[in-house]
């Protein structure tokens, strides 16, 4: 007889929701979270797409601590001395189930944990799980401090830097070309100032990504998300490539804050937090097995994240995976079989959902970005030069557009441009 029907390691998006599903079905469930409260060790860019959370909590928009509804999508090609921005707004982005909100994980994860606790889940905070307990190759519990606690199924939702997945499913430490590091500062500003600066209505805001000079031409990009009374500003860069940079990631962030395109956004703001977090970006090919005897992986511990340059997603995958992990664990517990075979319902559910379909669809994209360094160097400069040709007026006679633009494109190479476009299309 186990101490609990289920133990969940980690109370983030995946863990709290898995626990909520289990507890709601009347199962005994213990959540072990190493932070002193849910969210204390977590960080996001970040933005939450609502379609997944609304499946679990249809009324989340009234209850959850959301920051701002995202009404502006901005993408910038950033050269050291110039910046070209596309600003997209659309009524389609505002339809319920298609919309998104900026969030901060301290408050958001606490809310999620409260939902699981109200459903009957028990919580231990402030204790890292250092080891899994195994019997004959099967996971039968966890070791936390001096205590061993047993469960019929253990659900690992312990994040991108899980130290348990090797023991659980034989997943080796990921390589530096499949993982990125994120750095972020939260910069406080009055709500009305934020709204004025990004041209948003009250309660609304922008998601803004930067490619090029934000990472000094290295693989990755900058981001800015507007919260209620702060801006989350940061950089995500692929670890293996960043390790060759002349500029460390924290200096990249400092320089980005001073870039003429960013400085006015945060002017007068006060940095209130400096954070770091890893981002898995290898797609389906780098993912570990999702189940083994007595154990399920969900969220970033299973590398469920995509980084497409113009879009970074992880929380909606974690929420859907946590939901399916919880529901599949309930079915396996009811059937009295929590071996890998008994838990395959989870894998099938994910294969049928957007989670594994997306991770499969985008699996070639990280390689495309890494092998197309022109995206981060030549193209932002090309766009700058082309725009300078269009917009800079100094009174000298204007040359025909063709005559001024063609040499710029030739400098990069027409074939390179065509090839990169084609490769990019194929990888999406």
């Amino acid at each position, binding site marked *: 007889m186990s101490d609990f029907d289920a133990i969940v390691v980690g109370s983030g998006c995946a863990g709290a929701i898995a626990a909520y599903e289990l507890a709601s079905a009347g199962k005994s469930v213990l959540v072990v979270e190493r932070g002193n409260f849910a969210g204390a060790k977590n960080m996001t860019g970040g933005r939450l797409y609502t379609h997944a959370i609304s499946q679990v909590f249809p009324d989340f928009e009234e209850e959850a601590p959301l920051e701002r509804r995202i009404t502006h999508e901005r993408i910038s090609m950033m050269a050291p001395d110039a910046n070209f921005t596309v600003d997209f707004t659309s009524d389609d982005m505002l339809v319920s189930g298609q919309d998104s909100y900026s969030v901060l994980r301290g408050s958001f994860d606490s809310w999620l944990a409260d939902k699981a606790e109200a459903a009957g889940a028990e919580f231990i905070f402030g204790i890292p799980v250092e080891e899994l307990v195994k019997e004959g190759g099967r996971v039968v519990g966890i070791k936390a401090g001096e205590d061993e606690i047993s469960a019929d199924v253990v659900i690992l939702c312990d994040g991108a830097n899980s130290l348990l997945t090797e023991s659980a499913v034989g997943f080796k430490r990921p390589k*530096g070309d499949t993982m990125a590091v994120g750095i972020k500062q939260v910069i406080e500003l009055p709500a009305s100032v934020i709204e004025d600066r990004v041209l948003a209505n009250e309660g609304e805001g922008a998601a803004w990504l930067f490619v090029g000079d934000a990472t000094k031409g290295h693989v990755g990009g900058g981001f800015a998300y507007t919260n209620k009374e702060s801006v989350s500003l940061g950089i995500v860069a692929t670890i293996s490539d960043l390790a060759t940079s002349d500029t*460390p990631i924290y200096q990249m962030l400092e320089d980005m804050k001073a870039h003429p395109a960013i400085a006015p956004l945060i002017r007068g703001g006060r940095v209130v937090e400096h954070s770091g977090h890893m981002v898995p970006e290898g797609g389906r090919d780098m993912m570990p097995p999702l189940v083994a005897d007595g154990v399920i992986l969900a969220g970033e511990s299973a590398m469920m994240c995509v980084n497409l340059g113009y879009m970074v997603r992880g929380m909606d995958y974690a929420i859907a995976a946590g939901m399916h992990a919880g529901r599949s664990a309930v079915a396996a517990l009811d059937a009295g079989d929590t071996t890998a075979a008994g838990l395959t319902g989870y894998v099938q559910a994910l294969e049928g959902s957007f989670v594994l379909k997306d991770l499969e669809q985008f699996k070639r994209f990280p390689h495309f970005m890494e092998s197309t360094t022109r995206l981060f160097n030549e193209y932002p400069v090309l766009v700058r030069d082309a725009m300078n040709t269009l917009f800079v007026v100094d009174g000298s006679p204007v040359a025909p557009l063709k005559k001024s633009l063609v040499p710029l494109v030739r400098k990069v190479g027409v074939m390179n441009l065509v090839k990169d476009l084609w490769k990019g299309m194929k990888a999406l």
Partner: protein
Amino acid sequence: MSDIKITVNVDEYLALNKFEVDEGRAHIELVEDPDMAEFLKLVRVCPAALYKVDEDGKASFDYAGCLECGTCRIACGGTIVKEWGWPGPTMGVEYRYG
């Protein structure tokens, strides 16, 4: 170090965070006399700037101020990062915003 450009003082930003440093145990341990090329990778990738090289070219590392992201474990887990574990119970960084 001469080719790495650093003007920002990250320690001032870390001072804004809430930390409970685990004084009893270093949760990250490096090998003795770490290879400099590997160490310089960590100078570049650690978002907390915990890996430093001074003007005389001397390498230093302090686990206090760690953001617990695991980037050094991924970058150099097979080379100069010997041990990587979590800080003890209730210790380490505590994000108030996240």
